[in-house]
């Protein structure tokens, strides 16, 4: 079977059913000991970026300047952090749009960027590693990032480990939404859902 599906829609039909009884908050992702947290965030709209709840839009095809629609979460400085969320690119006439970043605030800036190319290839902007081909228009894709500050940053796509990256120390924060990369441009619309954070 070809390991790629460019579009996965009909999400309302496949989410949220309760077949077995277990508290949702006790879901373990990677070894246990996680504590659920709710970091604060600010909304960033630059250029033609527009944020409406968890829907993020770039409305222009401008291939320069700061074009972004994002949520920027609170800074953390140590320990191990986990982010979980699902995104669906509902339209992408442009290309190379960053979807999720782990930002090295006290270092060189965007330390890890998950982006999508036209056609659906998910890739890590730094290094260009292909992470998955399941990210195109319409696809619902789940992302988990586990960040051991000072040791390692791991990215899981739909539960599978796709990227491992050594991590320096310092201060970091999570961002997600739709953001034009240096070589990319909109228009794009990205819908996020199921955002959760843990620490330990």
């Amino acid at each position, binding site marked *: *079977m*070809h390991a*790629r*599906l*460019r*579009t*996965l*829609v*009909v*999400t309302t*039909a*496949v*989410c*949220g*059913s*309760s*077949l*077995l*009884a*277990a*508290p*949702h908050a*006790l*879901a*373990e*992702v*990677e*070894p*246990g000991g996680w504590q659920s947290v709710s970091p604060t965030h600010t909304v960033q709209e630059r250029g033609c970026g527009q944020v409406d709840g968890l829907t993020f839009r770039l409305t222009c*095809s401008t291939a320069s300047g700061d074009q972004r629609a994002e949520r920027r979460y609170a800074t953390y400085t140590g320990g191990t952090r986990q982010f979980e969320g*699902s995104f669906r690119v509902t*339209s*992408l*006439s*442009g*290309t190379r749009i960053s979807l999720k970043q782990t930002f090295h605030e006290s270092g060189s800036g965007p330390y890890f960027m998950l982006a999508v190319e*036209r*056609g*659906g290839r998910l890739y890590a902007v730094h290094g260009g590693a292909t992470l998955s*081909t*399941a990210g*195109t*228009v*319409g696809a*619902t*894709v*789940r992302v*988990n990032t586990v960040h051991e500050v000072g040791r390692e940053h791991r990215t*899981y796509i*739909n*539960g*599978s*480990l*796709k990227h491992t990256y050594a991590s320096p120390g310092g201060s970091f924060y999570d961002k997600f939404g739709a953001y034009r990369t240096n070589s990319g441009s909109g228009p794009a619309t990205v819908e996020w859902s*199921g955002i959760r954070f843990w620490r330990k």
Partner: protein
Amino acid sequence: MPARTLRAAPAVLFLALALPACSATAPTPAPSQPLRAALVTPTDIDLNWTDGRPDVAGHVLEFATAETGPYTPLQYLARHVTTYRHPDLMPHTTFVYRLRAYRGPASAPVRVDLPPGKPTAADENSPHDWLPPRDRPGPRGARHALRTGSAAPGELRAVIKHANGIHFTWRDNSSDEDGFLLEIRRTGGGAYEPVAVLDPDVDSTGLITLPDEKHASYRVRALVLGERSQAVRLTTGE
């Protein structure tokens, strides 16, 4: 590059695809086996199942890491696919899986032979407004319910936009679909497999192909989602 319109392949191809379901003697349904999961390494899970029901066109495989969900679709799998490996999983994490059947008829196929090479810089920078799935404006013909009869999509057309780009349009003949599947059969490949899943009422979409898809046949299936299987759960190791 000038756009080229490709029409549906001769009906004989469609008939050949449909013949297994039209034999004079109704085939005995194959036995069904419930969804099973096995931890084949500490972080790899193999799933397998069989479904002998002749009207089932395929399954949606879903996973979650909490038994109450939310579930995420891993892949739409054609009827002939009965195994799936979920690899390199999060350690010490419980994974829950279930299958959902889908049904529905497919259009006549259309063959597309893309030009060799990659898109030019001009191609890359050209507007790709043909790419997003959409419901084209304009009058509609009569539509029929999939759940009570056949309403296969009609008039599938493919226009080559550049060396990796194809624009598909079709006529939506169904009134109650949960969505559409764009299916591909690569030259030299076996059966058709889903390559894109589209919302209800969509009748136009673009596709950016991968390198092994220069020569392929495509068709569009209207689908309705059906019953779900039981859930199976496994916990990964270190």
